[in-house]
């Protein structure tokens, strides 16, 4: 047999085993009832967010076109009642899901990139036996510790206030404050991966730092990173809610937190009660769904946890 065929056969075998691993993963995940419930809720929410223009006209968000009575209880055209400007709460809720999920995912992406980068670099150089490597690891972990210690909300308030309220700023602020947990977890995992013989082999064969980190360490920390990502989204959505409630969100693009801020500013308990209840319950449901999926992933990936 010639060399190329052998390689293709090998590649096919790798692809095959990857497919099998994925199937095995799904079989185990499916048994987790909480994880499946969470997944169903998430898919529903994502469909609602994507289909928002089909479900409710965005004209209903503009107070100028709001023709309903203000602070009304549930009615035929507005199943969850209206807000102080006479807009349908259900319309706001559907469109708000877009902004809340968008900020949640975007901030998490930023946080995961920073967390994984710092975690892998610190773990990789920390595992080398050089003075420079140890110092790199030390410095990165000092920075991580600093972000862990400094209280999140005061830091986020200070940053968001000085940078000004906008969608980008809020994503940046949440992303930049929520990565240290991830960095620590990834570093610990990277250190464990670095101790394995195949990395020694790669080093002996002359692989550079970049090659080792990207081709060997990253794929091995990936599953953990995925579970951590899902759990982080739950956190970033809650953070967005808090910052928007304090008035640091983008007022032109109303998220669920922004709705709560408006309901609070117009006087708690004076208007339509669903204006306050609906976004809060939506947040709880989405955050719980992300938490359930994240824990289910963790349990499948880490058999030691499964007994809990």
């Amino acid at each position: 047999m010639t060399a190329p065929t052998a390689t293709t056969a090998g590649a096919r075998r790798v692809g095959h085993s990857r497919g099998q691993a994925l199937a095995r993963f799904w079989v185990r995940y499916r048994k987790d009832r909480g994880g499946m419930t969470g997944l169903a809720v998430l898919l529903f929410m994502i469909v609602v967010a994507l289909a928002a223009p089909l479900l409710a006209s965005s004209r209903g968000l503009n107070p100028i076109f709001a023709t309903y009575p203000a602070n009304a209880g549930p009615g035929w055209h507005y199943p969850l009642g209206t807000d102080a400007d006479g807009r349908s709460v259900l319309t706001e809720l559907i469109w708000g899901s877009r902004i809340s999920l968008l900020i949640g995912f975007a901030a998490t992406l930023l946080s995961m990139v920073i967390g994984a980068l710092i975690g892998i670099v610190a773990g990789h150089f920390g595992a080398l036996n050089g003075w420079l490597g140890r110092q790199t690891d030390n410095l990165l972990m000092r920075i991580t510790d600093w972000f862990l210690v400094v209280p999140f909300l005061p830091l986020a308030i200070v940053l968001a206030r000085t940078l000004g309220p906008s969608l980008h700023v809020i994503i940046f602020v949440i992303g930049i404050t929520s990565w240290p947990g991830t960095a620590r977890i990834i570093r610990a995992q990277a250190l464990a991966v670095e101790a394995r013989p195949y990395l020694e082999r790669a080093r002996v064969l002359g692989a550079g730092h970049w090659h080792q980190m990207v081709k060997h360490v990253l794929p091995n920390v990936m599953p953990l990173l995925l579970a951590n990502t899902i759990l982080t989204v739950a956190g970033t959505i809650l953070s967005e809610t808090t910052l928007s409630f304090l008035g640091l969100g983008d007022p032109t693009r109303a998220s669920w937190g922004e709705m709560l801020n408006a309901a609070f500013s117009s006087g708690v308990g004076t208007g339509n009660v669903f204006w306050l209840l609906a976004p809060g319950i939506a947040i709880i449901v989405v955050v719980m769904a992300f938490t359930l999926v994240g824990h289910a992933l963790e349990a499948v990936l880490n058999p030691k946890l499964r007994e809990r």
Partner: protein
Amino acid sequence: MSDAISGGTLAVAHELPDRAGASRAGAGLIKLLSIKISSALVTLFFVLAFNFFLFRVLPADPARNLVRGSTLTAAQMAAINRTFGIGLPLPEQFWNYLIQTIHGNLGISFQYHIPVSQVIGAALWPTILLVGSSTVLSTIIGVQMGIRAGWNRGGGFDRISTAINNTLYAMPDFWLGMVLLIVFASKWALFPAGGMHSFGGGGTGWHGLVDLLWHLVLPASVLTLVYLAEYSLVMRSSLIDELGSDYLLTARAKGLRDTMVRRRHAVPNALLPSITLIMLNLGFVISGAITTETVFSWPGLGLASYNALNYPDYPVLEGAFLLFSAAVIAANLIADLLLTVLDPRVRQA
């Protein structure tokens, strides 16, 4: 509050013994302590540096911020800049800032025109009362719930308390506050809707105290409910970690009753991660205090930050951020030291 972040604090909690072990290397307890204290001081120094550069470099013109709305000539602006030492080179400004901060001079509030230290001083004790009482309550209730749920894992109590805790965990604290406000203050009028005293001061002596506690019930309940969930979940899982241990088997083999095995053997060992978490969690309780104080108009540091944020009153914001950070750094240091004292494994590793 959020899972990812608490995952981070847990990671720290688990890594503490490691780090202590590395720094130990034949040195005494004194050396260990001095390393921990100096690293806390370094962290505090970086908070100061961050504070200085963010507030002094980003909003380009502090003098213009201070005299917002009034028209001044360029010469007058330059005079103000000179009094603030703004023309000086950056390192010199930073040095002046450090000296002033150490002397407790945090600047003058834009909204009240009094020193920031006075604004913060007046708001300090309401926050300590609120955060302190809810931390004590959530710790006691949460740890008890966690012990009961973990010891009979999978039982009725475990399932109900885990469901409740997961819901509370996913709940924005200020939303819970508003719901309680509607139910208990608006609908049933059982508790006041906000503030710390009734109109006219609420009386003196005994009456004043009762009035204060009456105002404290709702905001303290919010913070207690939101944070007990986390303590309960952590206590439960660290107790479950201990369940399979050999020493529990030994204790049972000695013929000890189930309650004794739990109380004397399992709980003391499972308590350590919870103690660390409770101290490390102060940062999140502070975040909760900011929103909860806003909802209930509780006149503490949180409400002061909220008002400063909307004004915007940068000196007060800056001072509050500094104080919050210092408090959390101190709590971390105490947790670290406490763990060294409580856990022989950390000392001897």
